[in-house]
């Protein structure tokens, strides 16, 4: 499944993601990590903790609709994986981000921007295993 190269849209999107991370640090002094936000909404440490994460998550849900206003359509979502693989992948992501204390946003963006050695190690590791997994699925199994 080919996708178009979109450097301008992707760079602009990346800049907005960065601005939101900076905004959260400025306002609440917290790392913008999707894993932490979701975990904090599901298993809150306190009501106070739950509230700001819930507001952040609710705002995220609105994002695609703002995109609709700007671009005239909802963001494209093309899923090459079958439903069983989507379930397997989702479950593994859930295990991995819980053990690894973060994902692409927390480690890959915020942690690397803080020059955290843990985040560099985490990001290097998952980029490598993602690449290997895609290679095995696409070129060895041939799905």
């Amino acid at each position, binding site marked *: 499944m080919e996708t178009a190269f979109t450097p301008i849209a992707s760079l602009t999107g990346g800049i907005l993601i960065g601005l939101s991370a900076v905004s959260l640090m400025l306002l609440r002094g917290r790392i913008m990590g999707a894993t932490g936000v979701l975990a904090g909404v599901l298993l809150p440490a306190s009501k106070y903790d739950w509230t700001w994460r819930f507001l952040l*998550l609710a705002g995220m849900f609105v994002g695609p609709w703002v995109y609709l206003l700007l671009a005239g359509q909802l963001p494209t*979502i093309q899923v090459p994986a079958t439903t069983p693989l989507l379930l397997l992948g989702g479950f593994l992501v859930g295990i991995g981000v819980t053990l690894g204390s973060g994902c692409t946003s927390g480690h890959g963006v915020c942690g690397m921007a803080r020059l955290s050695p843990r985040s560099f190690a985490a990001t290097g590791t998952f980029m490598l295993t993602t690449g290997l997994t895609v290679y095995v699925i696409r070129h060895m199994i041939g799905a």
Partner: protein
Amino acid sequence: MRHILTFLTGILFGTGISLSGMANPAKVINFFDITGTWDPSLAFVMGGAVIVTFIGYHLVFRRQAPVFEPSFDLPQNRRLDVRLLTGSGIFGVGWGIAGFCPGGALPALGTMNADVVIFVAALIAGMLVTRALSDRAAARTDNAQPAE
């Protein structure tokens, strides 16, 4: 005011994800498929986000504290351990299979796309099971070794 601004921060993130292509598994998987249908777009997402965050954090950290909290709450652990690397490795395998990462999927959940709902349900299951098992392992260790 702090609630409204937190909500707007979430909108900014969700709009950025939507624009970037991170919510599109085909695009994510193509980024990693260098020997196949390679689409380098996501390097621009990562590059833009990291550079803006790096500069922005430097400016924010000139302050004594965030605007609405008494202090910054930052991870202090700098130790590399097996748990971090194993977890990140497993995350990558799941990301490569599904094409969604949590940051890409959560904003996409706002569209109620069925595939995203399925992915997020499995993601939550994986998170809860892992948390429950590691809580139990921690409790067992506490029982075996009385607190000092």
